[in-house]
């Protein structure tokens, strides 16, 4: 296994938690801060200035930017399945902080996602397209 592949794997696994956590926490704060009834466009714009919603928006911007950085070296067919682990994070956060019950069907879904993510994340390299670059690339 070349050091270039190891370098990309390390970089990918450093970036992935940022992508997944920014997405999950961004959605969480958006939902927490969003008023229940929004009608006029002005109310939608006003909602963006609610503190929790604003925090959610900032986190979702971080999510998109970190995802773009990740996609600058990792395959789409790698990033898409692996970041689905976010669904598991959200389900577990809802269980811990919101006392939401996890049904049997949900547990089954969580298991399937975790197995799917491990197959792609553990079994395949993040990058399959570009030729591996020379030694100058090593850090």
């Amino acid at each position: 296994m070349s050091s270039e592949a190891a370098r990309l794997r390390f970089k990918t696994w450093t970036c992935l938690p940022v992508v997944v956590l920014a997405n999950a926490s961004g959605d969480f704060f958006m939902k927490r801060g969003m008023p229940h009834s929004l009608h006029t466009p002005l109310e939608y714009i006003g909602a963006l200035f609610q503190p929790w919603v604003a925090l959610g928006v900032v986190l979702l911007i971080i999510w998109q930017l970190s995802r773009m950085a990740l996609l600058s070296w990792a395959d789409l067919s790698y990033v898409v399945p692996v970041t689905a682990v976010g669904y598991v994070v959200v389900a577990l956060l809802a269980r811990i902080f919101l006392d939401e019950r996890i049904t049997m069907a949900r547990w089954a879904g969580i298991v399937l996602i975790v197995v799917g993510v491990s197959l792609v994340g553990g079994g395949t390299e993040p990058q399959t397209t570009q030729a591996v670059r020379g030694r100058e690339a090593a850090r």
Partner: protein
Amino acid sequence: MKWLVVGIMVAATTASEVLQAYGMRRHGEIRDFRPGALGRALSLMARNRYVIASVVSMAFSFFAMMKLLSVTELSFAVPVSAVTYVLETVLAKYVLKERVNRLRWAGAALVVCGVALVSL
């Protein structure tokens, strides 16, 4: 009506993600994470036509999802949006020319089923 919105949402999401991946591939690997270098990368990305097209599709996808949520429930909208995982994997193979081996196919399929179950 419902399925038309689903179609628009799925098409816009898939287009957005494939364009984002293609645009970033053209940009090249981000190696320098110091603020100045990130700022320069950001300004290049803002002028990358594939990234711009991706953001436009993302806006369509966002509003289609809002519309879908207003005509159906979350427990329909989220599982149905998992279809994009399959489409994106297919396009990653044929358009982005990624090597999608059996493990990736199997992983993507399991994730789709898992997402559907989690959100039901």
